[in-house]
């Protein structure tokens, strides 16, 4: 592997700025790596456009302002890109080419990003394994017989496999954080309303948020500095102090209070995952944080609440796919209603149909109060539980997922089991909070383990600085598939002991 591919996005950006590597050179390198990779991480490659753009950007290099200028990346295929196929990994969208650009990708383009293509995902972002894609499942770069997680599995796999330096995904119930965890990369789901959803094809609008998947916390900070900002085209967009995350990464976390929600470390959590996540607290403690245990007594309610609300919104959002306005239309219909029925029945996959039906059920007359209204009430209770937790700590440290990546084909037969694996991530979306997933070790199969950090609203700076501090003292985030897993850390930082403790691969 070319060593340039192993750089972080910021390192590559700096090398481009210095003139050590040209943007077309980096772009061709990424395209070759991505097109030869066996993971099925991309649905569409934009090779020609990427190379042309790289050449143009190279000419404007001296005016570059963003530290990510010229860095090749990937975009999840539910984010609209003008004139470039955007499929949501669904048959029903066919070869749809959006007539407009999503704000998120427009902002990255403005900052000098080079998109090499659109990444694979669960159909309409519904799934936790990237196996529900019409374009076939994505394979985990650490073990090709395993899933990459989902729904942003293509983005996570592409970054982990060194096919591009970063990617953007979307997170409705863990769809950035969980694949980041399974693939050993760092990912952030930002505070709801801080990244525009304009041009993000909606799954559950009150929960959806676009965010980065990258090599480390510093890259994520730089990407978020570009992505975040008020957008009048998204009615839920919030005003805020954006654009200072990267400069805030000092690694100084003295006095920060890390809360361990003990209810997240009980039954159902794999012992190796548990050990690796708790070891994160030890590393942070050695840098001067205080670690407190606290209760988070709503865990049993988070999955049902999430799936009721997400399915309800999905059933409404996906009514726009009817074979009339865009995408694919079934053949052999008899009249307008039959056109709708046939197109939707043949155009949507099973998981999407399941969630549409579930959503229609919980919103239907006679069941609305018992399910949908009840879920909105429990959502308020969950939000309150977070408010209480943040009275006694600054950040929460739960796992991302109960296990490491499962085998391909294991999850689809039992949808409820798959839903339950989202138990540590969905509450963050319900409460609109920022959440981060970062590599913190490997299990005995050599699969990455992720730890999650959750902050209060607009707590991205705090989250990223804590993750950055952890990554200064550990090198889990620098490991790559095919490389050595249990190499001793190069530096001799004070947390050497914690590193050994985290190194449970043996």
């Amino acid at each position: 592997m070319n060593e340039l591919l192993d750089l972080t996005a910021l390192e590559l950006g700096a090398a481009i700025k210095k003139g050590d590597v040209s943007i077309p050179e980096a772009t061709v390198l990424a395209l070759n790596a991505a097109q030869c990779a066996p993971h099925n991480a991309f649905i569409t490659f934009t090779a020609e456009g990427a190379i042309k753009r790289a050449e143009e950007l190279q000419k404007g290099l001296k005016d570059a302002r963003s530290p990510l200028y010229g860095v090749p990346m990937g975009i999840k295929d539910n984010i609209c890109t003008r004139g470039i196929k955007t499929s949501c990994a669904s048959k029903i969208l066919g070869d749809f080419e959006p007539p407009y650009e999503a704000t998120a990708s427009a902002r990255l383009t403005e900052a000098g990003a080079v998109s090499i293509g659109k990444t694979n995902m669960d159909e309409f972002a519904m799934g936790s394994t990237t196996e529900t894609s019409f374009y076939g499942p994505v394979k985990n770069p650490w073990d090709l017989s395993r899933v990459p997680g989902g729904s942003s599995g293509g983005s996570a796999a592409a970054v982990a496999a060194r096919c591009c330096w970063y990617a953007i995904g979307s997170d409705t119930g863990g769809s950035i954080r969980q694949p980041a965890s399974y693939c050993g990369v760092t990912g952030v789901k930002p505070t709801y309303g801080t990244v525009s959803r304009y041009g993000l094809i909606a799954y559950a609008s009150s929960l959806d948020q676009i965010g980065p998947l990258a090599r480390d916390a510093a890259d994520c900070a730089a990407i978020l500095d570009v992505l975040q900002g008020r957008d009048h085209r998204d009615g839920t967009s919030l005003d805020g102090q954006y654009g200072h995350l990267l400069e805030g990464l000092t690694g100084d976390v003295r006095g920060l209070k890390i809360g361990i929600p003990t209810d997240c470390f009980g039954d159902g959590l794999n012992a190796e995952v548990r050990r690796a996540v708790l070891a994160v607290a030890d590393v942070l403690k050695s840098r001067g944080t205080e670690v407190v245990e606290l209760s988070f007594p709503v865990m049993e309610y988070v999955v049902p609440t999430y799936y009721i609300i997400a399915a309800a919104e999905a059933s409404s959002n996906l009514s726009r796919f009817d074979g009339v306005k865009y995408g694919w239309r079934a053949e052999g219909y008899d009249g307008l209603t039959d056109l709708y029925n046939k197109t939707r029945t043949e155009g949507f996959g099973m998981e999407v149909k399941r969630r549409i039906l579930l959503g229609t059920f919980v919103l239907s007359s006679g069941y609305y109060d018992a399910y949908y209204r009840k879920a909105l009430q429990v959502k308020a209770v969950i939000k309150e539980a977070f408010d209480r937790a943040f009275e006694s700590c600054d950040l929460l440290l739960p796992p991302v997922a109960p296990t490491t990546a499962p085998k391909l084909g294991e999850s689809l037969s039992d949808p409820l089991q798959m839903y339950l694996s989202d138990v540590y991530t969905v509450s963050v979306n319900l409460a609109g909070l920022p959440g981060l997933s970062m590599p913190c070790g490997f299990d005995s199969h050599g699969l990455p383990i992720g730890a999650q950090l959750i902050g209060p609203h607009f707590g991205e700076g705090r989250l990223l600085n804590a993750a950055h501090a952890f990554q200064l003292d550990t090198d889990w985030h620098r490991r790559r598939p095919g490389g050595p897993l249990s190499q001793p850390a190069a530096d001799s930082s004070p947390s050497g002991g914690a590193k050994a403790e985290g190194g449970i691969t043996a």
Partner: protein
Amino acid sequence: MKITTELVDYISELSRLSLPEEEKAAMTAQLEQIVGYMDVLNRLDTAGVEPMSHVFPLKNVLREDEVVPSQDRTELLAGAPAPDPEAFLVPKAVE
């Protein structure tokens, strides 16, 4: 709660989906399992709790009304499955 085939037929019709028989049987069983699991929420007393739609108290985000160019019609229609320069084409819906 019990999810019957009749209920699945009803919500399928509302959803504009017509599942083939073999899919319907599997879907009915899965929905029953999922909805049964969701009943866990009944263990939590939420009497008096206001349903929460949005976590941020955002209300009526207003802006000045201004004229801006709309999307190009031809471009928008170009993505339709039955192409026509002026309209979305559908089967006759009104006699």
